[in-house]
């Protein structure tokens, strides 16, 4: 399976410019979409069964159809705040093919009847934001943006908005607050952004890769698009593979490919002489899987059935030279730092999880602490405004469940070492 859609000719020189993109047939789908009615475009998107590529995997077309009809200010926001540890696909997509995203964004805005759009790009992606701004400028000059796009009734103003470094802004409602110039705190849902989003107006929020798929769906038609991938996970996916692999990077594959082919075939597997100990199939917030799960097809449903999730499609491989405790501590510390502090279970839960993991490391923990830690994870999940806390609780909970013996052995040896040190200090 080697069908490239989004990554087709990705390294062709000049692809990031308007001329380069047009040479590859770019902006030829936009007039086609504008000749269709808004509902026809929306229908194509629904029938393509395209699922959001940002993490939640919700049907993109359905989400767009939730926006109320009628004459009002509607917004489209592209979520380019890619910050999930292990994810770097949007960076490469925007850096090398910004016009593909812009074309998809214009078509999606047309379908949703949005007249103002923003690309919210994380502040750390300064180089990418520069490229996007140049591309938006080119698209404006060429008449793809602004009033009456290509002489249609579609108006669209697009700006690139830079964040300033906060993982939580990848959460859609926190992103809206950040875009409104506030601290990026998540909002209570409902109301969902489709009804009350940016500036209280109906807002469609889509990930970079999701929008980059849109021109291809309209060009080839939903009927052909659903032939890619597997049922309920249609299309291709740009998968970021990193960690202990020989060839880390972004690979575009059809959904449903065997995980082993992706990890060991394309990405080269772990370094020579090493075995895969566990892997995150969807960024650091997904429950971990082990080497036993390598033959699972890589798609939304198979990952969910295995107790994990596809998320943003970011695989992190951890080989057997690493201690599960060190990885757990990295994960927990990250979410502690990034918790916005609005909801107690997340703010306190991430903090106490770090403290308890550090107790294990120092040899001050007892096996009961593992049960307490597991119960802390359970009490975070589903009890906050957003899923940031869950994003720590799920992987940590899965690590405790799958590697309990290793945690206990670590506890034991660290306690012995601490005891010996205390005896030596006393003597």
């Amino acid at each position, binding site marked *: 399976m080697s069908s490239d859609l989004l990554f087709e000719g990705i390294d062709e020189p000049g692809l990031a410019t308007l001329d380069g993109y047009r040479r590859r047939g770019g902006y030829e789908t936009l007039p086609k979409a504008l000749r269709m009615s808004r509902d026809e475009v929306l229908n194509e998107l629904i029938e393509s069964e395209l699922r959001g590529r940002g993490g939640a995997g919700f049907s993109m077309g359905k989400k767009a159809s939730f926006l109320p009809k009628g004459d009002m200010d509607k917004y489209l926001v592209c979520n380019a705040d890619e910050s*999930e*540890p292990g994810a770097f696909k949007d960076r490469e997509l925007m850096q090398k093919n910004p016009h593909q995203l812009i074309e998809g964004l214009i078509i999606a805005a047309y379908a949703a009847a949005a007249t103002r759009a923003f690309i919210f790009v994380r502040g750390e992606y300064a*180089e990418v934001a520069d490229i996007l701004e140049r591309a938006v400028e080119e698209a404006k000059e060429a008449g793809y943006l602004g009033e009456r796009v290509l002489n249609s009734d579609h108006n669209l103003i697009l700006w690139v908005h830079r964040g300033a470094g*906060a993982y939580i802004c990848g959460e859609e409602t926190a992103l809206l607050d950040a875009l409104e110039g506030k601290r990026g705190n998540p909002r209570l849902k409902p109301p969902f952004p489709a009804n009350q989003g940016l500036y209280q107006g109906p807002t469609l929020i889509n990930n970079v890769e999701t929008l980059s798929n849109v021109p291809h769906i309209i060009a080839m038609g939903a009927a052909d698009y659903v032939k890619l991938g597997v049922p309920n996970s249609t299309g291709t996916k740009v998968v970021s593979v990193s960690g202990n692999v020989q060839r880390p990077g972004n690979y575009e594959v059809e959904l449903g490919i065997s995980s082993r082919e992706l990890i060991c075939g394309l990405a080269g597997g772990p370094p020579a002489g090493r075995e895969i100990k566990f892997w995150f199939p969807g960024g650091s917030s997904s429950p971990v899987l082990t080497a036993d799960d390598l033959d699972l097809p890589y798609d939304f449903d198979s990952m969910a059935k295995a107790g994990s999730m596809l998320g943003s499609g970011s695989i992190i491989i951890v080989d057997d030279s690493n201690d599960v405790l060190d*990885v757990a501590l990295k994960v927990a510390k990250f979410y502690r730092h990034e918790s916005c502090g609005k909801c107690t279970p997340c703010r306190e839960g991430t903090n106490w999880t770090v403290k308890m993991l550090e107790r294990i490391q120092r040899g001050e923990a007892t096996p009961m602490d593992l049960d307490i830690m597991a119960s802390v994870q359970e009490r975070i999940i589903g009890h906050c405004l957003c899923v940031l806390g869950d994003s720590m609780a799920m992987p940590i909970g899965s690590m405790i469940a799958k590697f309990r013996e290793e945690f206990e052995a670590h506890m034991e040896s660290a306690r012995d070492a601490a005891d010996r040190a205390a005896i030596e200090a006393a003597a």
Partner: protein
Amino acid sequence: MTEIARFSHGSRVPGWDEPVDLELDPAEVPDPATTDVPDDLREEIEGYMARYPDRHSAALPALTAAQHRHGWCSPEALEQVACVMRVTPGYLAAVATFYDMLRVEPAPPGTHAIYVCTNISCSLNGADALYDAMREAAGDDETFDVRAFECLGACDIAPMASVDGTYVGPLAPADCVRIVGQCRAGEEVLPERQVARRKAADTLAREAGLK
């Protein structure tokens, strides 16, 4: 038993040594007649404000612009931004303290921002040693803001760092002295190892016949 760390005021949680002065009037929106704002900064912020239906949306780009001039979000910088945006400095202080890239500790203008990614994929590839080496290379030079940063979205070049916004990797601890030197000389940082010049893994797989 472990010694419990305490702050100077005796508590285990951070706080303030001095109680807040409740007699003080709250800071108001700065008066344009008495607030000196550089023309180019004012123009830039007004440009941002014009992009959005609500002027508050300009907070992040405006603070970033002010930090660029002042080195950090100093009281003076906040005052200037607040004056142009017609908000209180307190509003902006609340925003600035939330975001990692906005500095709320003093730093001189022209400070180099070096973020070493120490998240999972980078740390599996030696990022912690890289961070130590980078700190050592920068020494006590206050024009370097070297920080261990959360995932920067470039795990394909792990371990990596962002040097004034330019992504470079994979890095070895030995590269740090060169990076700091290139920053001081105003040169481009490790051109051959910038992520922008790297082919996609997908392309390489195709060329190698793996796809």
